[in-house]
C-alpha cells in the first residue's frame, strides 16, 4: 500500500494564461487533465493525496477582474481570486452581507483563508463548504466564462454531488455575484466542529431571513445545511413552515424538526449520522432564534 502516493505535490504544469479566452480554450482542450486554480487549498491537498491527477493547473487569479471585490447598487461581486480574508475584512460585506463574513470566518485558519476563495469553495462542491450556504441564501449567481463566452449560472442547483458541479470543460467561474440583500434581512451561520474553531463542519447551518408581506408569517427564511447531505441542502419544508405560521420559539422548534427530517447525513470520522441529525435540529433552532433576535431588534 502507499500511504502517500506523493510525499509532496506530484508533477504538473502550471499554466498562466494571458486571457480568459485562452484559459477556457486550454481547459477545454485538455478536458480531464486540467483544472482552474484559484487558491489551491483544495487542489493541492487532493493532488498530493493522489485523488486528482491533473496534468495542468490553470491559474485564473489574475485574469480580467477575477481579483476584484466590488459593491454597487446591483450587489456584491466577488472575483474568483478574492481570498476569504479580504471578504471578511471588507466594510461593505460587513455592512450588507454580514452572514457571508461570518461564514467565511469559520473556514479553517487565518493563514489558510489568505489563499482560500469563496469561488473555490463553491466549485469544490464539498458538502462541508462553509461559505456556500450564504451565497445560495443571498440568491447568488456565478459569472462563468466558457468556450462560448460569458454566461450566468444560478447557484441554486449548481452543486450536483460531492465535488461535481454544472461546470463544463472550459468553464471558468470569474466571480460570484450576490444581489443586494433583501431589506431588513438578518442571518446567522452556526458551525459545529470538534474544536471550538478550525475544524471542518460536523454540521453547518445557514439561516437568512427578511420581512416579506407576501408570507403569512410576515417573513421569508432560507435555511441551508452543510455536512448533512451530499450537497448543500436547502431545508424547503422548514422554510415553508416558517412562511406559513406565526413566528416564535414553537415555530422555530418545528422548523428545526423538519430540517432534521430533510437531511440524510452519513457516519464519518467527524461524527455519526445520529449525532448529526440531532445537531441539525439543535443548530437550526438556535440559528433561527438568533436570526429572529437580529430581525426584531
Amino acid at each position, binding site marked *: 500500500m502507499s500511504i502517500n502516493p506523493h*510525499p*509532496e*505535490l*506530484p*508533477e*504538473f*504544469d*502550471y499554466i*498562466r494564461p494571458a486571457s480568459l479566452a485562452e484559459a477556457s480554450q486550454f481547459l477545454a482542450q485538455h478536458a480531464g487533465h486540467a483544472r482552474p486554480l484559484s*487558491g*489551491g*487549498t483544495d487542489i*493541492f*491537498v487532493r493532488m*498530493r493525496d493522489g485523488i486528482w491527477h491533473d496534468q495542468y*493547473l490553470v*491559474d485564473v487569479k489574475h485574469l480580467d477582474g477575477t481579483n476584484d471585490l466590488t459593491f454597487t447598487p446591483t450587489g456584491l461581486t466577488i472575483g474568483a481570486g478574492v481570498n476569504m*480574508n479580504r471578504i471578511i475584512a471588507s466594510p461593505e460585506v460587513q455592512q450588507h452581507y454580514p452572514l457571508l463574513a461570518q461564514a467565511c470566518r469559520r473556514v*479553517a*485558519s*487565518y*493563514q*489558510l483563508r*489568505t*489563499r482560500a476563495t469563496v469561488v473555490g469553495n463553491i466549485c469544490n462542491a464539498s458538502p462541508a463548504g462553509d461559505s456556500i450556504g450564504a451565497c445560495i441564501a443571498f440568491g447568488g449567481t456565478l459569472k462563468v466564462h466558457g468556450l462560448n463566452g460569458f454566461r450566468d449560472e444560478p447557484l441554486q442547483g449548481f452543486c450536483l454531488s460531492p465535488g461535481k458541479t454544472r461546470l463544463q470543460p472550459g468553464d471558468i467561474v470569474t466571480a460570484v455575484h450576490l444581489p443586494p440583500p433583501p431589506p431588513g434581512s438578518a442571518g446567522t451561520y452556526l458551525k459545529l466542529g470538534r*474544536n471550538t*474553531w*478550525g475544524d471542518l463542519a460536523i454540521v453547518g447551518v445557514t439561516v437568512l431571513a427578511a420581512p416579506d408581506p407576501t408570507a403569512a408569517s410576515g417573513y421569508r427564511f432560507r435555511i441551508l445545511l452543510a455536512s448533512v447531505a451530499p450537497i448543500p441542502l436547502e431545508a424547503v419544508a422548514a422554510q415553508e413552515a416558517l412562511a406559513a405560521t406565526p413566528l416564535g420559539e414553537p415555530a422555530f422548534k418545528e422548523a428545526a424538526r423538519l430540517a432534521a427530517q430533510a437531511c440524510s447525513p452519513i457516519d464519518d470520522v467527524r461524527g455519526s449520522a445520529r449525532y448529526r441529525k440531532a445537531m441539525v435540529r439543535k443548530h437550526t433552532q438556535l440559528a433561527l432564534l438568533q436570526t429572529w433576535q437580529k430581525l426584531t431588534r
Partner: protein
Amino acid sequence: MATHRISLTVNGSTELLDVPSQMTLLQMLRDKLALTGTKNGCSAGECGACTVLLDGEPVNSCLVLAVECQGASVVTVEGLAKDGVLDPIQETIVDHGGVQCGFCTPGMLISSRALLDRNPDPSEDDIREALVGNLCRCTGYNRIVDAVQDSARRQAGKA
C-alpha cells in the same frame, strides 16, 4: 516538467530562481534557499509550522506554489529581526516561556506578527482565533497568547 524562472524578494533580498511547477513555496525556501527556519509539519495546510508572510499576509507555504510568488515579497522567521534587533514578539515569546521544542515557534511568530500588523490591540479571543491554524503540542498555547498580548503592549508603549 516545466520550470519557471521567477524573481521575488525574500527577507528583503532579491532572488532569481528556476522552480518546477509543483514546487511549493515551502520547498523553495527550505531546499533552494536553505532558509530552514520555516518548518514542515504536514505538507497539507493543517499545522501552520510552515507559515510565512506573503506580501504581508500569512500563508501556509506548503499550499502555495513557488511559481505563484513571482514578483512577491516573502518574509520568514529569519527575516523578523531587523539589523540584529529582535521583533518584540520574538522577545516576549521567550520572556513568557512560549517556546519549548521550538518547532511550532517560527509559524507562531509569523502568525502573531501578522495579527499585530493588522490589529495592534487584539483581544485575547482575537489572538486565540488568529493562532487556530498553528498547532503546538508542547506549550498548551497560553504562554504564547500572553506573549502576543505583551508584545502588543510593548509596541503601544513605543508608539
